[in-house]
């Protein structure tokens, strides 16, 4: 399965450590850009650039309140990552479940001898 190479992909959006830090900063709630800048000691243009990428994939949304633009996390858009992780867990579990069944079969056969 090929991934989009641009910012249209949630996976690529969160592949950047600074963007992950911004998402983390928003877990506790809606914040204006200035607060994120202060919290993370990144420059305002840098934060704005990352917020734009995160907005494009829907991971953050923005609303105006007075002179401020407030950004908030949209966790539902992390669903593709959740689905991906679930797939990884399933693949791993499938193998270990096969091993489990095999161990039980071996022991059953041993007992029947």
């Amino acid at each position: 399965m090929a991934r989009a190479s641009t910012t249209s992909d949630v996976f690529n959006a969160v592949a950047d450590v600074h963007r992950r830090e911004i998402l983390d900063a928003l877990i506790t709630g809606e914040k204006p850009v200035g607060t994120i800048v202060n919290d993370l000691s990144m420059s305002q243009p840098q934060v704005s650039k990352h917020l734009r990428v995160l907005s494009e994939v829907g991971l953050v949304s923005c609303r105006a309140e007075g002179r401020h633009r407030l950004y908030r996390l949209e966790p539902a858009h992390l669903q593709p990552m959740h689905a991906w992780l679930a797939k990884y867990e399933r693949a791993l579990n499938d193998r270990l479940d096969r091993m489990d069944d095999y161990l039980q079969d071996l022991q059953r056969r041993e007992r029947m001898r």
Partner: protein
Amino acid sequence: MNGTRHGSATIEFPSEREVLVTRQFDAPAELVFDVLTKPEHVRVWFGAKELEVCEIDLRVNGKYHFVGFVMDGDTATCSFRGTYLEIERPVRLVGTWVFDGKPDAEAMETVELHEEDGVTTMTDRLTFRDQASRDSMTWAAADGVHADQGGQVAWDRLENYLATLA
């Protein structure tokens, strides 16, 4: 008894370079160890179908090589290989681990078994050279091992995000 522990493996990412899998089996540690290290056993359970190649030279500096369809729905065979570095039946097995599709992402694998009341807890720790190697490998595993190289997955604090999904 079959199936009661199905789906119970836990996956953790203790550091940026590691993947730690824990799973319990209702079997003595000796048997679990043998099922992990004897080709006649590994051949049967490792892949979605019986492995095409299952070579195991269980000695320090001995090599192993598995080839087969690893997951259901795979369209190509996958090849894993490595070298055993420490063998301590039935409690510990250390070796290198590499997926031929991603030879740069070689990892160190440490399997430890701990038996208590007839239940063996297996921990399987893969330690990669760096985070990029680990992420490229876990990425590949989830995508049926045919993923492009482009993706790099952020595992950091992923759990936090997932917790907010509920």
